[in-house]
């Protein structure tokens, strides 16, 4: 069994004159949680949809679970799971029946009760999907994504609209799946989500990979200059330095007792990310409504 689950090289997709994906290379090993970040219109959804087999590419090569997604058959689909970005219409039957029905599409699904327990919907098993709260509805979406026992799970903006507690619970569920060996491709707008879950993060902007790496080293984050700041005689002072430990030691020698309001700040993932996408001229509002809207018929 191959250890690389996703292998893409020179991925290209154009909508008319607009190049949505301009030569993306990705390689995701089995068992990894891989996150794709980027502003609207960066090519995220297009890239993911090509990997899912929902969109045809205009150039490059793609192998997902050893097959080309464009034209892969039922056996391949049985090995992937998709949690869609938007809520989608579900049949008007109780949650357990919805899950049982979709389980019947797969050759070796998980048990319905096991999955209900895992996503925390055991008590809602008899409720209709439309009566669930937003967060529980989302858990049902995840349940449907994993009922078939996928080797690779696509999660598209899974926690949009969650309150902080629900998001933390959800992260626990995703970590649990990852521990069981599921490879996860996570698209998200929330940088703290990528930081909390992903083994590696890829930043896309204007159809290209701008940075790729572990969240704590992304864009030179680990070695970037730190800012040491403190308060002296009622005035805020700060020093940007590559050696924050030495600066703090020097300060400690100069003060008796505590250094007032001492802070050592390294760039957050968000700061690194905003720096990366600003370099390319992309902002959160770029892309006139996102790549989906630009797709022609």
């Amino acid at each position, binding site marked *: 069994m191959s250890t690389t689950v996703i292998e893409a090289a020179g991925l290209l997709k154009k909508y008319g004159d607009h190049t949505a994906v301009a030569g993306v290379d990705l390689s995701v090993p089995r068992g990894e949680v891989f996150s794709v970040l980027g502003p609207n219109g960066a090519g995220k959804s297009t890239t993911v949809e090509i990997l899912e087999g929902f969109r045809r590419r205009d150039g490059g090569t793609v192998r997902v679970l050893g097959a080309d997604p464009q034209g892969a058959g039922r056996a391949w689909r*049985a090995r992937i799971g998709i949690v869609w970005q938007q809520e989608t219409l579900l049949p*008007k039957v109780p949650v357990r*029946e919805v899950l049982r029905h979709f389980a019947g599409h797969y050759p070796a699904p998980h048990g319905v009760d096991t999955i209900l327990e895992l996503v925390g919907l055991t008590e809602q098993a008899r409720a209709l999907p439309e009566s669930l709260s937003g967060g529980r509805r989302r858990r049902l979406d995840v349940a449907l994504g994993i009922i078939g*026992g996928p080797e690779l799970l696509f999660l598209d903006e899974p926690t949009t609209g969650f309150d902080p507690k629900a998001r933390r619970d959800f992260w626990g569920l995703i970590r649990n799946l990852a521990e069981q*060996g599921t490879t996860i491709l996570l698209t998200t707008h929330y940088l703290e989500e990528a930081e909390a879950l992903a083994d590696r993060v890829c930043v896309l902007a204007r159809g290209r990979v701008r940075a790729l790496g572990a969240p704590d080293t992304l864009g030179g984050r680990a070695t970037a200059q730190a800012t040491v700041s403190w308060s002296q005689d009622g005035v805020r002072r700060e020093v940007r330095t590559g050696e924050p430990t030495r600066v703090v030691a020097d300060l400690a020698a100069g003060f008796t007792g505590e250094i007032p309001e001492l802070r050592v700040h390294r760039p957050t993932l968000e700061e690194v990310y905003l720096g990366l996408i600003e370099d390319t001229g992309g902002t959160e509002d770029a892309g006139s409504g996102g790549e989906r809207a630009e797709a022609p018929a």
Partner: protein
Amino acid sequence: MSGTLGGAPAGDVRLPGTLRVGLSRGWLEIRSFTREWESVIFTFALPALILMMFASVLDGLFDVGMPAVDHYLPGLFAMGLMSVSFQTLGAGIATERDQGGLRRLRGTPMPPAAYFLGKTLLVFFLALGQAVLLLGVSAVVFGASLPDNAADWSTVAWVLVLGTVACSLLGIAVSSLARTAQAASTIVVVPFLALQFTSGVFVPVAVLPDGVLAVASLFPLLWMAQGMRAAFYPDAMAAFEPSGAWDLHLVALALGAWCAVGSALVLLTFRWKTRKDG
């Protein structure tokens, strides 16, 4: 959230068969449909309600040579069949497409044929239920005269099957024209209503202008109503048909042609995604 998954599924396992998934889809479609009281009233029970009104209010008001219930039953039967096939699928599939239900299904290993098998089971469940309801109400409550020989019942059967299949295919094709779920109900309801008034459901074909009749005869409803009249009306009533005969061979030809054209339209136009999904 707690609990863990069992061991990973074995690698070499067989996919569930199309028939099994299709039957499961059919069962789900039927259960989902019956939970929507609006569709139960407006597509399933409407012909029976209209028949009850006509039979109670219009009886004896016009000289149609027979009780109102007998006069309207064949046309309303045809209309009901078109309602559960064309209207149910046209609006229903457009909604599923617009709200991502089709895309979700396409993301699973469901065989595409299983989806259409499920829709077929739903439509025939509704068509047969409709027949039982409409014929039951008209016979039990209003004493309508139903066909009394096997030949007429076999006409009912083949008109029901051919007409329902033709209208189902037309409905699936029309669902692709609608950009949104809301647009779909208009795209479906307006032409359907126009056909009801021009195909001999509410207004006898004998009084319709030739031009109107010519246009309506391009669509299945007129032929379904004519086939049903052939089965339900006394033979002497054939004199009031446009050609002076039931022309059942033309009914079979027209509905058969719509099955062929409808299949081609569905194969050419069916999409699992909306236009904005690419």
